């Protein structure tokens, strides 16, 4: 289907979609987040949207600890959701993973405008995995609360 893509879909989806989160801020000034998996900043905007773009990048935590899944969508297979993503699980040390992400996103001109976002998300996901592994640490300065 000639997905009259991008612009049309974005116009339809930007105000209302099942991934939209309008929680923080006050009233109409609230921030609009988006829960799609292909959204690197989780912001509800055209550039970052996973729904409205043909080429998307997604970085998620994989099941096993320390492993991160990098998924880019293939442009030719827009109609086949099952075969849409090019997934690769990365379990290397951080610098290598960063290099890999950068190559995939910018090196082959896939989505150079998303490079920074991808790297930022990588580090965020990676850090959260580290924390998840070692448990949430209490700060050393925190005084023990005496519960009555």
């Amino acid at each position, binding site marked *: 289907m000639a997905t009259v893509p*991008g*612009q049309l879909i974005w116009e339809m989806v930007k105000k209302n979609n099942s991934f939209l989160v309008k929680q923080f801020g006050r009233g109409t000034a609230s921030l609009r987040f988006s829960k799609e998996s292909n959204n690197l900043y989780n912001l509800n905007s055209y550039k970052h949207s996973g729904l409205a773009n043909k080429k998307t990048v997604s970085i998620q935590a994989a099941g096993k600890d320390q492993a991160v899944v990098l998924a880019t969508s293939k442009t030719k297979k827009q109609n*086949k959701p099952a075969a849409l993503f090019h997934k690769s699980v990365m379990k290397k040390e951080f610098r290598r993973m960063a290099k890999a992400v950068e190559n995939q996103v910018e090196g082959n001109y896939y989505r150079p405008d998303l490079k920074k976002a991808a790297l930022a998300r990588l580090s965020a996901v990676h850090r959260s995995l580290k924390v998840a592994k070692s448990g949430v640490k209490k700060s050393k300065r925190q005084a023990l609360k005496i519960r009555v």
Partner: protein
Amino acid sequence: MAAAARPLVSVQPLPASLNDMATDHVTTVALPDVMKASIRPDIVNFVHSNISKNSRQPYAVSKKAGHQTSAESWGTGRAVSRIPRVSGGGTHRAGQGAFGNMCRGGRMFAPTKTWRRWHRKVNVNQKRYAVVSAIAASSIPSLVMARGHRVESVPEMPLVISDSAESIEKTSTAIKVLKEIGAYPDAEKAKDSQAIRPGKGKMRNRRYISRKGPLIVYGTEGAKLVKAFRNIPGVDVANVERLNLLKLAPGGHLGRFVIWTKSAIEKLDSIYGSFEKCSEKKQGYVLPRSKMVNADLARIINSDEVQSVVKPIKKEIKRASLKKNPLKNLNVMLKLNPYAKTARRMALLAEAERVKSKKEKLDKKRKPVSKEELAAAKAAGKAWYKTMISDSDYTEFENFTKWLGVSQ
């Protein structure tokens, strides 16, 4: 208007264990033109909100409510307000206000009537446009996902399954089929979402709510699959000939997850026609045309036709500079009048000269004159006088000898 190339949609085969036609291999169907129609969420929203008013049942207050009294106002002079009060005596009710919307036991403001206009008429063409839009939207994975259906594991959109599905009789096989084609997560989502409705609807026969799952569209009348699929929570079934907008775009939102059978999708062409060919079933109906055939702006802008005519990008942006006064600021003056530099230099030099010479003159005057100079000045004065006398004609006259002095 070009009917764009019709891509092929492959028909998902059902596993051999379920049917006799174990030999059906992957076949393909051409995408029906309906799926290329323009998608108009505004029309769909409008039509949906109007159509959903059509199954309403009227409600109203009893027309006698609040008026079953013979109340009369007591008038003025009795130190009470003037609303009609219930006549008679011997009960609490006596003397209470009646009839007003503000009174306890009175009738409401504007009692609701059964003859309110409950149903709405919608133009047939608009209704068809909306259905066509909804069908088109159901073939775009982004929109279906945006509506909230779990279609990540669906092999292809639009999802077409072979006709052997139409003869499924048991719900258990129906569920297996859904799992095979990747539609099960959506049905599962619907099943998990069953909950008790918040609010008074609970007490008004609308106790449970749940999400919507896939919509199965079949082609042949009386297909057995209706009975097999209808009990699965969230799943709806529909015949192609009678597609309902309320099912295709629930809540007025485009993009229901639709599962077509092969005969259903083949029928779509004859039911809705194409952009040029009239539909066979709907007299004189042609698919609506879109305002822009190619709405991919990015591609249009980057196309050769446009880029070859477009001016190059201005990388240097010239910004308005602050105006500086040439009379005060030499550099700005020079931009306007290069000669100003030499003129000013000349002026300065001349000024310096003047100052210098004036100073010299004054110095000279203030300096006491030396004797030689004084003598020289005096002698020069005398000599000049002498020349004046000799030059003049006065010497010829005797009368002037006294003035002129003796020596000549």
